[in-house]
């Protein structure tokens, strides 16, 4: 008997106002004692819903509508509350997403361990105290921190505390829901490592829920992949790396690559997941699947065993049957690959044009004064940074949070003034601009925001949003502006434009919104674009698509771009030059390929090591068919139900 058995599980969100949303449908899987299993899916795939359903922590209006969840053979869906309560934390515990809010803000760390330990163990108070110390040490936190309040700890520390808390009663299963999302890569890496070590030592089972297939593959024994509320693949890690069975898994894997490889290429999956208010009667992936056959649109594939795992795919199943029957091995070839890819080779970077200098940053420093009580402390956010931006070239600014990269961006856009040094835009001193000057300067310097969900005002139509810069800077009248809006929308691949004009931001998907944000930045025909983590909020499977778009626009329009990111892979792909920033200092600077392939600085090396390395066999990587032709984005008429 497996530790956890989930059978035909359905979870539905039903409200009076909206049509019911079938978030999780007919999910089956098992989890054995001591197993480390990853659960991967993109936003809206139902992975967190599944996690919460297993824990019986669904928030209304979410409800388990069918199926069963058994823990050590005990049926949780019908278990009386009181019995379930007895099992909680002793049998299974959990860590929530990035724990910013999962610790009670008004009580000390110690108390949050104390209450559950006192109630659920026979330890005396002093024993509990000692045990809390041990637990904290286990996650590499000094026991003295138990006297602290949650807000006094950093994000990474809170997450460790949450992990220690989950292990307090030595549970048999720990469910972690995006435990490191939002933390710096180095911290992420450490926490994951910590978790894996503890799991090996103590032998509890783990269900690790994440959107990041890379991280999951690195630590898990087995990986479950969800798409649009259904389980599409369930396979051991080494098998999945060697031979991803489901085309979706394959697509996801394409988003990962080793940034330090000689040639780097990542692919994306065009289109977007279906609306879950209507249950697809066919394969939910069919509209995006490069291998779809007519049967895919007629019948739903079942999750069936094939090769070393299970998958829900008609084509894969045929191949498997074929193989069984003919004793030939298709698997070495793997399924056909996507032709939607972005690589250095196909990037317009390869054109090697000599861009002329547009902006020069000279020995810029920024110091913040902070007042705490009567003492004033100063903090050097940016320290003696120099670089320049060239037309048609991308400069990558790589660093973790607190490295000063955003401060640099703010100084370049004139929203903040450097403490010393100068920023030149042609003959203009940017750091001396005020009021009207800044307004005029902004025609030339535009910004692409990190979060496409907050960069577009929810009360305006796309048309209004795009007309504003055109009318403000281009001095167009309304009719001309409207005409231009269409051109812009087509430029960023939102076609047909008429369809998007009248929409509100919330009716678009994340990727489409980010395209609108890019279009808005292009509207005044700027010389410089600052892209601040433009892909970090997007689903993994569409990131390459936006990178490709940015690349094309920058090179074609001879725009100088500052690409701010924490992600070395995308920096390598998009940038000509890379600056690595650590605590306000530039620790490494040079041509993208050189910096990443032969890093001289220790910090850069650390960052590189933190990237999940997917040891994929050559045949999987080498079979790409690179195309220079950017893939037309399929316009999906149905409004997004992502929110």
């Amino acid at each position, binding site marked *: 008997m497996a530790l956890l058995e989930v059978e035909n599980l359905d979870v539905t969100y039903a409200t009076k106002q909206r049509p019911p949303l079938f978030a999780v449908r007919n999910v089956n899987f098992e989890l054995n004692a001591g197993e480390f299993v990853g659960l991967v899916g993109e936003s809206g795939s139902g992975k967190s819903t599944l996690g919460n359903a297993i824990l019986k922590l669904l928030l209304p209006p979410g409800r388990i509508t069918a199926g069963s969840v058994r823990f050590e053979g005990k049926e949780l869906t019908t278990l009386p509350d009181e019995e379930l309560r007895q099992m*909680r*934390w002793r049998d299974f515990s959990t860590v929530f997403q990035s724990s910013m809010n999962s610790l009670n803000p008004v*009580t000390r760390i110690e108390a949050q361990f104390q209450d559950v330990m006192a*109630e659920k163990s026979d330890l005396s108070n002093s024993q509990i105290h000692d045990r809390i110390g041990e637990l904290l040490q286990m996650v590499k936190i000094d026991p003295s921190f138990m006297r602290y309040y949650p*807000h006094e700890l950093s994000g990474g520390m809170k997450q460790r505390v949450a992990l220690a808390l989950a292990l307090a009663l030595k549970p048999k299963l720990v469910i972690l829901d995006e435990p490191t999302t939002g933390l710096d890569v180095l911290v992420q890496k450490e926490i994951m490592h910590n978790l894996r070590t503890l799991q090996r030592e103590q032998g509890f089972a783990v269900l690790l829920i994440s959107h990041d297939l890379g991280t999951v593959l690195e630590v898990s024994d087995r990986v479950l992949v969800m798409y649009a509320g259904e389980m599409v693949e369930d396979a051991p890690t080494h098998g999945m790396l060697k031979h991803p069975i489901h085309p979706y898994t394959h697509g996801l894997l394409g988003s990962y690559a080793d940034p330090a490889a000689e040639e780097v290429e990542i692919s994306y999956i065009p289109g977007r997941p279906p609306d879950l208010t209507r249950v697809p009667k066919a394969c939910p992936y069919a509209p995006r699947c490069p291998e779809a056959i007519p049967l895919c649109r007629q019948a739903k594939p079942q999750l069936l065993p094939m090769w070393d795992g299970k998958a829900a795919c008609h084509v894969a199943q045929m191949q498997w049957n074929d193989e069984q029957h003919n004793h030939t091995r298709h698997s070495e070839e793997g399924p056909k690959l996507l032709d939607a890819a972005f690589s250095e080779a196909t990037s317009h970077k390869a054109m090697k044009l000599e861009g002329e200098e547009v902006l020069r940053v000279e020995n810029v420093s920024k110091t913040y004064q902070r007042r705490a009580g009567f003492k004033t402390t100063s903090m050097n956010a940016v320290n003696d940074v120099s670089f320049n931006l060239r037309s048609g070239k991308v400069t990558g600014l790589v660093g973790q949070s607190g490295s000063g990269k955003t401060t640099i961006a703010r100084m370049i856009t004139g929203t903040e003034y450097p403490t010393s040094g100068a920023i030149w835009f042609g003959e203009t001193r940017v750091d001396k601009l005020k009021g009207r000057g800044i307004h005029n300067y902004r025609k030339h310097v535009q910004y692409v925001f990190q979060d496409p969900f907050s960069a577009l005002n929810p009360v305006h139509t796309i048309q209004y949003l795009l007309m504003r810069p055109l009318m403000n800077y281009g001095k167009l009248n309304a009719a001309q502006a409207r005409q231009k809006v269409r051109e812009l929308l087509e430029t960023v691949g939102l076609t047909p434009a008429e369809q998007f004009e009248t929409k509100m931001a919330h009716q678009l998907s994340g990727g489409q919104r980010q395209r609108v944000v890019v279009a808005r930045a292009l509207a005044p025909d700027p010389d410089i674009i600052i892209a601040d983590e433009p892909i970090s909020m997007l689903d993994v499977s569409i990131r390459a698509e936006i990178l490709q778009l940015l690349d094309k626009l920058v090179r074609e329009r001879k725009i100088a771009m500052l690409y701010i990111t924490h992600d070395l892979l995308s920096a390598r792909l998009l940038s000509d030059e890379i600056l690595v920033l650590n605590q306000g200092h530039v620790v490494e600077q040079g041509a993208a390929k050189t910096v990443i392939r032969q890093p001289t600085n220790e910090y850069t090396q650390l960052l590189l090591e933190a990237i999940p390395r997917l040891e994929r066999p050559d045949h999987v990587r080498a079979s790409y068919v690179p195309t220079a032709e950017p893939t037309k984005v399929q316009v999906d008429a149905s409004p997004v139900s992502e929110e």
Partner: protein
Amino acid sequence: MRYFIRRFLFFLLTLWTAVTLNFIIPRLEPGDPAEDIVRRLAGQNKPIDPAQLHAIRLMLGIPGGNIFQQYIDYLNLLFHGQFGVSYTYFPYPVTTLIGQSIMWTVGLVLTTNIIGFIAGNLLGAFAAWKRNSIFDSFVSVGLSFVGTLPYMWIALVLLFIFAFQLQLLPMGGGFSETSTRQMSWGYTLDIMQHALLPALSILITGPIGWIMGMRNNMVQTLREDYTRLAIAKGLKPWKVALLYSARNAILPNVTGFAMSLGGIMGGVVLVESIFNYPGMGRLFFEAVGNRDYPLMQTILLFTIVGMLLANLLADFVVGLLDPRVRKGKN
């Protein structure tokens, strides 16, 4: 620490503003306010007593003098505790009158407000915990109707039913004229009997604000991750409800407690005047009726100071309850 210093500075600044406001309001009228008041008194066919005129002058400062001089004199008088002389109760200084009535009001307001606060928050927490139950819909719909009934109306109806029709309770006052006014069981009972109806008038609607506030806050905190984690921990349900969800939901209400005293004061003025209760509210009512400006303004000033003190206290309590506030993030 910084937090408390900041709050204290705000206290001083507000106090000063309130005092100044008190100085300005009577001077907003055109002409010499003192003469105007005198004229009005004359219009009421009362003989103008020079002493009354003096009382008005005291209150308003020496007329004709430069406005700054008047202001400084005014502050000076205040500083020495001289708030002028009431001319309804001439020649008593207003401070004496307030001194006699203040305890009645403080007693009434504090008891009702504390009972209301505790009961309200508990009921609200319970409603949120049992969301969408019959109790919850009774609380969130039924009680909010009761909450719309005006204080004065409730007071009038209670008085009408219990004192006039049923004659169970006294019609007004703080104690019986026949009582000895000595500390004794009889006297205490007498006071209780007199306070019952006024207190009830405030208590019928008083807690409703807290119930609704607590319910709505807690509906939110129940969805917060820390509450969900507490459920995941398998803690006893009452611990989850009280120590996690309610504990966080009550924070805004504590700040609101002091603020609400302002609203309660309005109710107290009305209720005390209806029950002829010997507190500051009735005194204020009388002062308004008799155009006793010195008395009226001093009571307003005292009330504001009372509110400020209550706020200071509430800030202090919030600081104790919420470690994030203590840190001085503002």
